[in-house]
């Protein structure tokens, strides 16, 4: 299973390196979301600082939908599923590999969005760095949910409109925990229990994904 996961992860990352969808579409969309939310809050520095944690996680969530959609689209291309089945790859391995590749991309995106937060929202960079454990657990949870729901809508004509409707309510707990944890860190506390909550979510989503991804891809 782990060998299959490493193969699929490597494949997805190689495709990303060649196509640069993350660099040219997902990251600019995330930054655009940051800017638009800042415009909606107005020029008050206090309002921006107060809203910064929520806006960071909301921008990350919205951009993660694009990244998940892209990850699912790779598997939906003509003949890919048949090839994966012919290779005899373990479904759980395929799921974990795709989650890992997506998590790596989302971690890069989170780093860039946090830089945007420093520049646009004037938050304390030293304190924001303390939120790293939150980001690490959260991207795994986002990637697990995104991969599973991406597989659900892959190949349908309405995938682009259906995926946000399905995935965003499922990701709401990640948004709440991420926002609360980051707000706590920026206010001078630690990530503490919110990091644990996100870690539990990440493990739970991974476990559910490992169980349900197989039946989803099973053609019988």
């Amino acid at each position, binding site marked *: 299973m782990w060998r299959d996961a490493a193969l699929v992860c490597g494949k997805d990352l190689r495709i990303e390196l060649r196509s640069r969808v993350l660099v040219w579409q997902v990251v600019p969309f995330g930054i655009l979301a940051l800017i638009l939310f800042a415009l909606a809050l107005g020029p008050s520095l206090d309002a921006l600082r107060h809203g910064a944690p929520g806006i960071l996680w909301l921008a990350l969530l919205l951009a993660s939908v694009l990244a998940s959609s892209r990850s699912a689209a790779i598997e939906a291309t003509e003949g890919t599923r048949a090839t994966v089945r012919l290779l005899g790859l373990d479904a759980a391995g395929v799921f974990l590999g795709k989650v890992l590749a997506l998590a790596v991309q989302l971690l890069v995106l989170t780093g860039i969005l946090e830089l945007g937060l420093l520049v646009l929202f004037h938050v304390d960079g030293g304190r924001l760095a303390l939120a790293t454990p939150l980001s690490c657990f959260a991207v795994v949870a986002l990637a697990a949910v995104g991969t599973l729901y991406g597989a659900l809508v892959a190949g*349908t004509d309405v995938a682009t409109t259906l995926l946000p409707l*399905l995935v965003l*309510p499922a990701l709401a707990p990640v948004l709440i925990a991420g926002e609360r944890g980051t707000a706590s860190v920026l206010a001078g506390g630690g990530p503490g229990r919110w990091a644990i909550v996100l870690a539990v979510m990440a493990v739970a989503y991974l476990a559910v994904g490992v169980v349900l991804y197989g039946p989803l891809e099973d053609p019988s």
Partner: protein
Amino acid sequence: MSRAVDRALGPVALGLVVLTVWLGLWVTPPDELQGNIVRLLYLHPALAWVALYLAFGLAALSSALYLWPRTRASRWDLLAASTVEVGVVFLSLTLATGMLWGRPAWGVWWTWDARLTSTALLELLFIGYLAMRRVPADPHTRARRCAVLALLACLDVPIVHFSVQWWNGLHQGATIDAGFQFHVHGSMLWTLLLSFLAFTCVFAWMVRRRYQIAARSEEVEDTELQAALVERRAEGVR
């Protein structure tokens, strides 16, 4: 289900609802503190019970039975679809009656309490399920996807259930707790219990009807497909 039970279910459900309304509005007394808004007690918990535990519990069970290769049959998919559709109606009514109660009791229609928020998310998750059912796909693929989606959405049900204990929000605790300890008494208790029975019967009747309609439309689709195939073969022979 025998034909007699099938025929009797609708009138029995209607009779029980009428009895609940009569007891709830005219026989039971107003609450000492809450006055007449306590009468929503005979609607809201029963609607929530049907939506959260009966409808979505049945949806999870039938979806799991569909995904399990040994028990896979289209009837489980149809049952899951029917229970979710009816469950969404009951959950919408749960939210609406909760809001009607919240306005006089809390002073607002909506508050970001953990129970309310997790229930609203559950509603959105199952609206997503209903959207997925309407996506054109071959029946088996659609059934498999919807079964996975229903199981994922049902993960929110325990969160809704325990949200009152975990987060100590504004929403009150259970009216009837896990050890069947009742926190209401007398005619109010009997009316409350009757409301649970009445809405359970309404749910059973609605799911039964919805399932029959879904099964018949599947039969019609199959018949039309067979007729089209016969027609094409006849064209080929000519």
